[in-house]
């Protein structure tokens, strides 16, 4: 299995965070499939480690660390009926040397542990040749952390792993222009379902905690973790999704801790209306009339109508009253 490193916490201002939140954030990252979490010494200090233990503070120094998770063998091999072994956290020094170097100069880096950054423009070049050169360079440990200024970092990360790369560094929700972790993980899950072991249903919880810790809202349409990505409005899509959700969903909402929601707006059709009003007896002309008013209101408001607003509208249209919304 490849190594997935998360770097989100290294760029946070962590002064206002509680240790409980930090520990929970790390727990969720491990659950969704992260192999290593990159940490600064200040962060290590605030996690649940016995930092006062003799020697540990000195060991921490100014170095960066990786937090990894281990499952104790003695517990894992315990007999049937015993509880799942609780994973333990372990610290190891981060020995990766970060380099933003032209691919042609890699021969001077033999036998090191390197993290390659940059490479933003790789998608407009022959990237498979570049990956081949990197993989043939003889470097001991080669981690890739492509920049996302060209909005292609996820693609570069996944193509790197597909080409044989063994390690990739990411950040949650496009944090700090790293490849978005959630996109890389879903890409891996869909392309290698048998090998991927993470549980992405915690992503919504992780998003909420990320917003709390970073103070940065995640876009509602953000791939994988946006709150609105499973809202369906257009008549064609609602029709498809009600018949079989796979028609217009690349993965289930539940698989990322989200929920599907049929919403009513300018592009709604009769199907959506019947579904929302739960009224199969609604006449053709009544449905037509309600839809007409609904579309007009939504265009005026620039948003969907809530269920309550719809019921009011339907009642008033059917009673032939003046409409308020």
């Amino acid at each position, binding site marked *: 299995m490849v190594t997935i490193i998360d770097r989100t916490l290294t760029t946070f201002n962590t002064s206002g965070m509680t240790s409980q939140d930090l520990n929970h954030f790390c727990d969720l990252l491990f659950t969704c499939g992260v192999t290593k979490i990159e940490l600064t010494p200040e962060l290590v200090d605030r996690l649940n480690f016995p930092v006062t233990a003799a020697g540990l503070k000195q060991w921490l120094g100014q170095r960066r660390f990786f937090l990894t998770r281990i499952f104790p063998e003695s517990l894992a091999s315990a007999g049937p009926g015993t509880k799942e072994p609780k994973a333990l956290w372990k610290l190891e020094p981060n020995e990766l040397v970060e380099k933003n170097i032209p691919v042609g100069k890699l021969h001077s880096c033999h036998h090191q542990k390197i993290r390659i950054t940059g490479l933003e*423009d790789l*998608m*407009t070049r022959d*990237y*498979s040749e570049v990956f081949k050169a990197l993989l043939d360079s003889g470097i001991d440990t080669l981690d890739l952390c492509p920049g996302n*200024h*060209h*909005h*292609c970092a*996820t*693609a*570069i990360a*996944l*193509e790197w792993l*597909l080409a044989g790369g063994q390690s990739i560094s990411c950040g949650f929700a496009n944090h700090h222009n790293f490849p*978005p972790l959630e*996109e890389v993980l*879903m*890409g891996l899950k*869909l*392309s290698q379902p048998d090998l991927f072991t993470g549980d992405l249903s915690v992503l919504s919880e992780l998003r909420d905690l990320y917003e709390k810790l970073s103070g940065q*809202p995640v*876009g*509602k*349409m*953000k*791939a*994988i973790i*946006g709150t*609105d*990505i*499973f*809202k*369906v*409005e*257009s008549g064609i*899509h609602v*029709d*498809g999704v009600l*018949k*079989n959700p*796979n*028609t*217009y*969903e*690349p*993965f289930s909402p539940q698989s990322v801790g989200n929920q599907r929601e049929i*919403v009513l*707006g*300018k*592009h709604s059709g009769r199907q959506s209306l019947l579904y929302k009003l739960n009224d199969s007896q609604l006449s053709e002309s009544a449905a037509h009339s309600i839809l007409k008013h609904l*579309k*007009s209101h*939504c*265009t*005026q*408001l*620039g*948003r*969907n109508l809530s269920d309550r607003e719809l019921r009011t509208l339907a009642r008033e249209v059917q009673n032939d009253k003046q409409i308020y919304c």
Partner: protein
Amino acid sequence: MTNRYIVDTTLRDGEQSPGMAFSIREKITIAKALDTLGVARIEAGTPAMGREECRAFEKIKLSCKQAKIIGWNRMNRSDISQSIGCGADIIHVCVPASDLLIREKLRTTRSQVLKTLSACAAAVHSEKRELTIGLEDASRADWNFVVLLIETAQHLGATTLRFSDTVGIMSPSLCKATINRIPDNIDIEVHMHNDLGMAVANSIQGLRCGAKYADTTLFGIGERAGNCNLEHLLIATQGQLDFGINLDELQWRQADLKSIIYKNNLASA
């Protein structure tokens, strides 16, 4: 630099994003901005949606000086006659290509799809309009049927074939391999969704493999995680591909349109 062209679908696929709704005046403002920017083709909407959509479509057609205006249609003769009636330059017919959509959504068969497509093409040609054909959900379709649809599109006189990654599951290498397999005797248009955050990268691979057109939207709006973001595509291909669109101009015009597109929901931007 290689020349390529933008098909902007902000007013069709983009507006289908939940909560998005443009008035006629707003649609015209957006279309005029796209036309001035140098967008080659504007997918202005689905005339079959009703009278308001038709009125918007007709006004857009009158307002745009350079861009060709596309009317989007289901594989349905009544939809097509609405688009023709609104004056669309290009009649785009969307054909479900995957068995999943054919079976589960249309509840029909491949042979019926081919038959209906032929009838639709005849309706377009009888009115002497340009026909383009889109393969919906092509990335999940059986390749043999995709080939058959491509051959049919050529035979039916379509000028452009739109290859749609409808649920955004393609990877750049798959996109590269797939577009390379399409014969070069029809113009190719790539329509990429951003479900895995790879719409820009996939569009670039499609364009590098010979696609002439890439579908985009302003701010990347669209169903679920959206479509290929025009601004991002221009940033990523600067100095490599020439779409005849100036990035600086796009950025300030797009900023001007932000309040129209997001209305009272600017937090979503």
